């Protein structure tokens, strides 16, 4: 739209392709994506008195609760890893995931006044939710590093970290796409999201180690990409046994499937959202 003046001709027509992602358009709007992320962060830290402190406190306090109740009182096995480190390493990717998915669920409805007034690729909205969550993640990650140093953790293969993070981001984006589109069309989805996330958390090794799951159910358990992500984080930061290669591949494939379906569904929603929202 803002390309060289005289040559920019666009054709507005019913969508032809079922699955056509306009990469050049997304690239063209990259500045807007940055602005949306920037706005997200600015608002989050402007409206709270505690600001950045809150980002660190949330995982720290949850870690404290888990350490006291699951660890000290319930004697949950952690494979010899100090409880705070064990829980923080699991909570960090999970809180990122849950936060990003929650934000993405609401993002279309939240921006409905913009959507009905001006055009831009709607995909930028869930994308910005997923990206702005990464900043919080980065801050908490420094705390996690501090904990690892304090407890003199045996670091595992740190190379797993980027892969695990990429998987977490893709998974959050894939699920976020579905929920954002669903919530735009059916406004009661946002009430369901917290429950889904809660169940999902217990289906992921956040509060317990994944080796507690019986071996014959492990294949099913590892279909959950977040289980692989969290195990990957623990492997890197506490030196525990990581997920097998097959689990990585399976999780990747599942995220790819959810992501493709999500993109399709999101585009369908994109075409009608301005008419129904």
């Amino acid at each position, binding site marked *: *739209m*803002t390309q060289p*003046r*005289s040559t*920019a*001709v*666009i*054709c*507005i*027509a*019913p*969508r032809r392709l079922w699955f056509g992602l306009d990469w050049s358009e997304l690239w063209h709007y990259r*500045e*807007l994506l940055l*602005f949306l992320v920037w*706005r997200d962060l*600015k*608002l989050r830290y*402007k*409206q709270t008195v505690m600001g950045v402190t809150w980002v660190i406190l949330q995982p720290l306090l949850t870690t404290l609760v888990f350490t006291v109740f699951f660890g000290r009182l319930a004697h949950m096995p952690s494979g010899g890893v100090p409880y705070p480190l064990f829980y923080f390493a699991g909570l960090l990717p999970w809180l990122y995931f849950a936060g990003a998915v929650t934000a993405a669920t609401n993002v279309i409805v939240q921006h409905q*006044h*913009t*959507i*009905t*007034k*001006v*055009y*831009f690729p709607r995909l930028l909205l869930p994308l910005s939710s997923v990206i702005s969550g990464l900043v919080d993640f980065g801050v908490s990650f420094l705390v996690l590093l501090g904990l690892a140093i304090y407890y003199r953790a045996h670091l595992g293969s740190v190379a797993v970290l980027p892969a695990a993070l990429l998987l977490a981001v893709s998974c959050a984006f894939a699920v976020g796409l579905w929920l954002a589109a*669903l919530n735009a*069309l*059916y*406004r*009661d*989805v946002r009430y*369901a999201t917290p429950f889904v996330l809660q169940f999902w958390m217990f289906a992921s090794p956040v509060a317990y180690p994944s080796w507690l799951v019986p071996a014959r159910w492990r294949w099913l358990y590892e279909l959950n990409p977040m289980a692989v992500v969290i195990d990957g984080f623990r492997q890197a930061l506490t030196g525990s046994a990581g997920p097998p290669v097959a689990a990585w591949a399976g999780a990747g494939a599942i995220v790819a499937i959810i992501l493709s379906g999500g993109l399709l569904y999101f585009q369908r929603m994109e*075409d009608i959202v*301005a*008419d*129904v*929202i």
Partner: protein
Amino acid sequence: MQDIVIQAEGLSKRYQRQRASSYRTLRDSLAETLRHPWHLFARRGPGREWFWALREVSFEVRAGEVLGVIGRNGAGKTTLLKILSRITRPTAGRVWVRGRVGSLLEIGTGFHPELTGRENIYLSGVLLGMKRREVAARFDRIVEFSGVGPFLETPLKHFSAGMQTRLAFAVAAHLEPEILLVDEVLAVGDLEFQQRCLGKMSEVAQGGRTVLFVSHHMNQIRHLCSRCLWLDNGQLRADGATQAVVAAYESSALNLTAPPAAPRGCEVVGWELADSRSPHTLDHAGPVIIRFSAWLTEPIARGTLRLQLTDALGRVIWHVDWRFTGLPAGPCIFSLKLAHLPLRPGPYGWRAAMFDGGRWSDTQSLTPPLVVALPPIAFALGEFHSVLDLPFELEACPVPAEAIPRDHSSCS
């Protein structure tokens, strides 16, 4: 065809009729799907009501044209603008658009009360399609135009409503689009704000860029647009020179009751302008002759002709009772000569009645209405300021204090 900036071909948009509730719930949809699983795949099932907001609309707009879009409420004007600004897609047909599209309906888009004035300028500018450096280049002009300079670092929530609007307008006005869409419905702010919107439109048009202007105010359309589209029920009813299209629209918009079928007694049956290019549109200043044709079923020795001129709302703005004697039965023309008919542009109506010596006939509205299509002298843009459009001169002259006695009791 380098200078065509908008080319629409068979543009159609179909909507599902709005249900009672404003949004669907997943629960309802699931229940519906469980009850009638096949509806999920059927494009149109029972209970789904569709209507066409736009149907097969084709037109072209050239660079620098100021195009008016008129029509009743629900005729598809806003849908057309929404398609052109890419907020919604057409159901069928296509439209090519050359250049950046901006609209004054985007005012304040992306504004957030917690962010400062500076931050909002950037955010809104980028949302409206500017690059960051484009906003930066125009930043000083935007601030100056809006007049909120001292409050740039203040959160928007502490701005007055007027300041917010000014800032929003300043950002939108500096977008400098090749094609500007203006929907009058959204420019309902105060009069001053409307004037600014219109001023901006003129400025854009004079700069050789293209404007699409949706309005119900026919005087604004007449004043600003050279060409006009008339949408009626989603279809393009007319496309042509503004004077002709607006006159046709105004005639149809004025809802006149049909004359009664069988004439009884004496009756005025029609009217037309003498010496005019179009018999029912007044398009020249100066003396006017209006011919009223009547039918007398019997001779009238002493009678009265009553003529009334009404405005669009049916209020009588001029009334005359004229006595005559000795008219034979049969057709008759009454010629009304006026030195001026100083009316503001718009639709008016004639009503007539006749007294045949024994009783009055019913007062009837004559069809078609009178459309005044002269450029207005005063208040070029306002629609409902007045009825008369008198030529005038005004002058001011200071005088000594004692020339005007001051009465404190009436002027405190």
